[in-house]
């Protein structure tokens, strides 16, 4: 079982469509031709220390992808705002992580719009 984390906290996985799964070493530049018709993409976080997924998400958004973007794997509550700001809609974590870092620790980062230097500078 897995838990889906959104701004509202923990929930079950309600998506039923087909996912395009991307590894963390994917070069998004090579993907443009594959994105036609894709509505949901999952980017793997094999380790929380592998921050490439944040840039991949951002690139996909810059390339015009407007579907659902999910970060899946070893993501920390501390990274929730980073993920949302980079363009992810939600995060999929396993039960161990959900038990070790319970919902309140994620909700503490749910106001990811606040205190955002980059948004302020971009205007």
């Amino acid at each position, binding site marked *: 079982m897995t838990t889906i984390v959104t701004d509202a906290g923990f929930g079950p996985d309600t998506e039923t469509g087909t996912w395009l799964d991307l590894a963390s*070493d994917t*070069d*998004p*530049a090579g993907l443009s031709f594959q994105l036609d018709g894709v509505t949901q993409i999952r980017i793997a976080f094999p380790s*929380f*220390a*592998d*921050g*490439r997924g*944040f*840039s*991949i998400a*951002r*690139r996909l958004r*810059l*390339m015009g992808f407007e579907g659902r973007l999910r970060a899946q794997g070893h993501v*920390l*509550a*501390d*990274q929730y*705002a*980073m*993920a*949302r*700001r*980079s363009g992810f809609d939600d995060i999929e974590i396993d039960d161990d992580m959900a038990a*070790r*870092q*319970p919902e309140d*620790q994620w909700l*503490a980062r749910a106001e990811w719009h*606040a*205190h955002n*230097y*980059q948004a*302020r*500078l*971009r*205007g």
Partner: protein
Amino acid sequence: MYKYSEFDTAFLAERNAQFRAQVERRIDGSLTEDEFKPLRLMNGVYLQLHAYMLRVAIPYGTLNSAQMRQLAVLAETWDKGYGHFTTRQNIQYNWPKLNDIPDMLDALAKVGLHAIQTSGNTIRNVTADHFAGAAADEIADPRPVAELIRQWSTDHPEFQFLGRKFKIAITGSDNDRAVIKAHDIGLQIVEQGGEEGVRVIVGGGLGRTPMIGKVLRDFLPKADLLPYLESVLSVYNLLGRRDNKYKARIKITVHENGIDDIRNRVERQFAQIKPLFSGVDQDILAGIEEAFAPPALRQTSARAFEAAYTNDPVFRSWADTNLTPHRDPGHAIVTISLKAHGATPGDASASQMRVMADLAERYAYDELRISHEQNVILPHVAKADLPALHAALKEAELGTANVGLISDIIACPGMDYCALATARSIPIAQEIATRFDELKLEHEIGELKIKISGCINACGHHHVGHIGILGLDRAGVENYQITLGGDGGTDATIGERAGPGFSAEEIVPAIERLVYAYLDLRDGGDEHFLQTYRRLGLAPFKAALYPDHQREKAA
């Protein structure tokens, strides 16, 4: 000087609350040690040989007196009464307890200071020319741009878990005092056809694979800076190697892919990112520039200065080495040496910090700077005040007249504090300084930069020392390798290895032989060590370093 906006203050309060919670979550097991590590690092907290260490950012090297006094309070309340200024415009506290660190961060926030991104695989504290805003040779004060970059890079969501650390330095002068070519990105403010822009250099670095940075963009309009930096970082984040920690810096990415390939990727990314910037960053920059408006300089008579210079040889000697021309002829830039002979380079006690803060308030328009050469600078002092200032410094044992001389040594913490060290560096610096002080030769020798690192990571910048010393471990015995001819300035050069290393007992006599050889070889007193080295090359210095070897060859 820049003062925190409400936004900055609110951000920092929230960030400090988050770190306090992270420490608690480490203790209750929510975070594993592995997970906690990058989180504490991005808040400046290292685990060292004996204890935790807190590294506090001195943004672009600039402090006011209230901030300096608060650094003294931290040293007294949570450390052993002193702090250590580093080559990256940080101050390190070597003995805090983890549980106290959240309180230390709150105390820093009260004066607008923080420890964010002073460590970890993040964009680090941006460093700048320590004479910024005062130097006679500058095109523009680089600090407003540095502050803009500080804001942009702080908590940047894409770049908190990079493949490796990322260091940016900036200068506004042709005379590079910020070692920009030894940084992941070096920026130089330049002028083209009346417009101010930025030259972008990428892929420099020291460490085990020293490299001089290459030009990525010769002229970038100032308004394009943030989207351009974001593009470089995005390219690095995805392309940089993650399979080998020693090949993870952008210098290797540039080396392996070629500067042209990197440039193409950056430009492609830039085309996508640039339109997202509405231009408000330039309004924010204009506000920051206003905050950095130079102080209204007093006009005073130079008579007191001239009298002291003529009549007081101690003052004269200090003025000759520790003053730099100010853009205003009635003022001087004062460098306070933290390198008293025999002391730990870069250490300052809480009472010395207070003295410097008081003097800055009284004589220097309330401004202080920290240099990458581990000294403290009063950037604007009226010449008339110099004799009184010098007298006060002498009384606090801060009057050492050795800036730029052989005892003004950069040394990393080495075996005395650092978990990665393979040799001691501080004691070697102390012995060299003490020896040349005994010989009473250092003013005769003139400009000579010695830099010492306690391991291959090169925190002491030994690659760019005129004389570099690298402490290694050879079968359990300290062994010191010498490099010659390095230069961290505008003509940045990596030093050449002179030959086999020396033991801890042999290293100071070896340096002495080198220096005597230089004194014999130089073309008059105006030719500095580095110039002589460039003129003659390694051979004569090698002969001086290894006299036995020469004899063997001759026999």
